[in-house]
């Protein structure tokens, strides 16, 4: 059975629900409803993603300091030939394992490509 499309009012209410969620003002019940809606109605997912992305685009446009990058990225230095640029400090202490595995909050970003990144 196909999903019924959202009415205009329903769409606005759903966007409002997402904005409340992003603001951290959504109650636990609101959050459960949002999760249930996204899990059970795949047709709502593109709207959800588009609202979240627009939130990021507006933040970048109107409050660029909030999406400021580490200085090494924001203004990539142009090294003269033969001149070395200091490496950027990692966000977390590196582990000894070759793929950059870390402690109990392990994030493995390159699980299939460890060998490529360590050569």
């Amino acid at each position, binding site marked *: 059975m196909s999903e019924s499309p959202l009415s205009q009012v329903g769409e606005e209410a759903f966007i409002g629900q997402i904005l409340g969620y992003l603001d951290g003002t959504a109650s636990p019940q609101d959050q459960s409803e949002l999760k249930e809606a996204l899990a059970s109605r795949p047709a709502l997912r593109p709207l959800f993603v588009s609202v979240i992305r627009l939130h990021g685009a507006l933040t970048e446009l109107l409050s660029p300091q*909030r999406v400021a990058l580490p200085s090494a990225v924001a203004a*990539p230095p142009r090294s003269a030939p033969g001149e070395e640029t200091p490496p950027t400090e990692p966000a977390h202490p590196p582990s000894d394992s070759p793929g950059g595995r870390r402690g109990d909050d392990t994030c493995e*970003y390159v699980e299939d490509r460890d060998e490529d990144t360590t050569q």
Partner: protein
Amino acid sequence: MDPRQERAAALLLANRAMLFSYIAAIVRDPQMVEDVFQNVALVILDKGDVAASVKDFPPWARRVARLEALAALRRRRKAPGPLDPSLLESLEADWAAADATAEPSATLQVCLERLSPYVHRLIELRYADGLPALEVARRLNRSPNTVYVALSRAYKSLAECVRRRLGREGANDE
């Protein structure tokens, strides 16, 4: 910065709004969003060359962001909320589909200027001043619900305007 890092930095710059919003959707707390974003930026700078192409970069970077955001929530003993790992996985196809149609900031700027002065003010308070909608409502002496409805309409209107303009530009390019 070596060429490998320069490439990673360029990809990061091109995708930072997307990544910021992705992290915001998972962790929600504004300070935490900025902290996680910084960590993700550093990881990408360090390992960003694992994405084989420009097209491969956004999904790979989202995976980094997802792992960093969920790890940050765990460190602070916070539940991931609605966007748990399985739902994030379900949403990935929609994020990937949207990668192709990301809104350039110049187009968004034009569309912002077309909003009514009142709605423009709402957006400014919410984004330029970084106020949550409840505070926006208090400052404008409106009910929170009124502000959420107005912001919802503004989002719809902006999204439609961007889509229309990008469609027109795409047609002109052909």
